[in-house]
Every structure is written in structure tokens, then in C-alpha cells.
């Protein structure tokens, strides 16, 4: 069984596969591409390094933010805190969210072609990490921690049939 990986970091895209044996991840590097090949148990490590997962403060207040998908896309496209009108309804947390914007990244793994993949989507800011939860046309930004994102990256690369953790609640604090 092989999982198909899709990586997005800002406007850059990567791809790859993960099997019980190894993970092969291809990412842009300058004008070329770089292929990273590791044993599959190192895949979370590679994904963490590619996305600069490391210590961050905890977003305060530690409360979720609600957006429409369109507003969220606009906020990301603005890419700076100079567009407060886009999230005027979400003050004060939303202002802090964009003030220290670092990167928006996403990793998706599909284990079966006929089933939707699982994804970890994160907004990385100087003030902390936010997990992006998409439901229909709504987007919730849920404050999270590097520890919680690390756990999600591990779960991501476990095939559905081998997922001993299906009852695990998505960790928020941690």
C-alpha cells in the first residue's frame, strides 16, 4: 500500500509517496526539484523540517477564529496585517494572527484513490500555530501547539488499515 502525498507551502507545491518501507518526497528547490528519500518512519521528521515546525508561543487568547473560506483566502492572499477590514469581525485575536504571519502550509495523504485523503493544514505565525479546519464553506482557525501538530503528522502517515489511533481526538493543547 502506498500513500500519495501532496505538500503545499505558500504558493509552492511538492509531492511524494509513502509506503511501509520508505517515503519519497519531491519539493521545489530554486528552479529545480529535490527528491528526499527516507525510511517511512522518518517521514514526520521530514515534513516537520520542510515546514519549519519548532517551538512557538501559544496563541493568546487560546480561542478559535471563524472565517468564510473566501475571507480566509483573502486574508492569506493579503499576507500582511494591513488588511484589517478583512477580519474586522474577529478582533482582537485575528489582528495578532496576521501581524506575525510566517507561512501557511498543508500536507495531505491519500491512501486510497477512491477515498478523500487526510490533511494537516497550519498557519504559522510569530504568535503561535493555528490548525485550519475546513467544513464546507467555513474555515475555523483553531489555536494549536507544535506538539499537537507533531502528533498529527505522525497520524497522517499511518495507513487507514493500520490506524490504531482512530479514536484519538485531534489534540489542541499539548
Amino acid at each position, binding site marked *: 500500500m502506498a500513500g500519495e502525498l501532496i505538500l503545499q507551502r505558500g504558493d509552492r507545491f511538492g509531492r511524494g509517496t509513502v509506503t511501509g518501507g520508505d517515503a519519497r518526497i519531491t519539493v521545489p528547490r530554486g528552479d529545480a526539484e529535490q527528491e528526499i528519500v527516507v525510511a517511512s*518512519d522518518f517521514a514526520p521528521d521530514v515534513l516537520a523540517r520542510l515546514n519549519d515546525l*519548532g*517551538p*512557538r508561543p*501559544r496563541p493568546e487568547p487560546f480561542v478559535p477564529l471563524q472565517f468564510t473560506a473566501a475571507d480566509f483566502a483573502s486574508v492569506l492572499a493579503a499576507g500582511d496585517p494591513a488588511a484589517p477590514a478583512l477580519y474586522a469581525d474577529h478582533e482582537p485575536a485575528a489582528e495578532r494572527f496576521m501581524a506575525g504571519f510566517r507561512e501557511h502550509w498543508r500536507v495531505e495523504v491519500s491512501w486510497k484513490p477512491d477515498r478523500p485523503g487526510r490533511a494537516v493544514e497550519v498557519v504559522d505565525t510569530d504568535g503561535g500555530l493555528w490548525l485550519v479546519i475546513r467544513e464546507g464553506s467555513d474555515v475555523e482557525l483553531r489555536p494549536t*501547539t*507544535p506538539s499537537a501538530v*507533531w502528533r498529527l503528522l505522525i497520524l497522517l502517515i499511518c495507513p487507514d488499515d493500520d490506524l490504531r489511533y482512530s479514536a484519538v481526538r485531534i489534540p489542541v493543547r499539548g
Partner: protein
Amino acid sequence: MRYRHPEHGFAIDLPDDFEIYRRPPLVALLAYAPEDVREPFKAAIGVGVEDAKGADVERFTDASLVEQERDAGFQLIDRVSPGFSSGGGTRTLGHHELAGRAATVEQWRLVVGEVGYTITTTCWTLVYETLVHAFAAAAETFRPAEGPP
């Protein structure tokens, strides 16, 4: 399983099925998880006791991380203070290579007087999710020595 160290005086509750290694090298306590054929190495909980050399817990943690980062494969994932739910201490989460496999290491540190304590939990990265709560539960029960040994 409540464990109290006969010389250092600290105490910690270990998962019942963990086995204490009688003569651990370099650390005061080392306990292993039971055998799991899926795992390339046994998960472990260890406790280190050392002279904090006058450092507070943040500087003690800084110095420890400098040592760990000399391992080129080590990656620090998270660091948070306080590290214990009761307040105080630090918690760090990192990743490194152990015996050629991916290992996740989570540590809690505490300085009491001149003594620095490090509770280290290690496991194969792919089983970290199954152990994370047991590791944290054990760390939360840690109590340093109440007085001079």
C-alpha cells in the same frame, strides 16, 4: 507502580507493565515498556539527576538542549514553560535517530535547589501517539527528593 529512588530520594509513578532496568548507565532510573514486536526498540522512561550548577530551570534546559543539538539528527519540535500542569519546570519535545530508526523524545525538567532533574521518555516515533498520555501521566507524578539524601 510507585518508585522511589533509594539514594536520590525522588519518586515517580511508572506504568505497571514497565520493567525497571537494575543498573542503568548514566541515569538514575531507566524503565522499559514491555516487548512489542512492531517496535524496533523498546519505549523507555528515564530520570537523570545532576548538579544544576546554579542554573534556574530555563538555563538548565538551555544547557541540556545544547548538548542534544550536537547530535546532527536532533530536531527540537516544542518547548513550553511551565512544563508541569501544576506549574514550574519545562517540557521539550524532539526528534532524533536511535539505532537507525525514528525516535521521539519528550522531556520534563525541574531544578530544586542545586539539583537538576530530567525525566526523559523515548519511543519509536510511529507509536508515540499510543504512549503520549502514559508518558505525560508518569511525568506529572514526579516528586523530587524532599530533603538532602
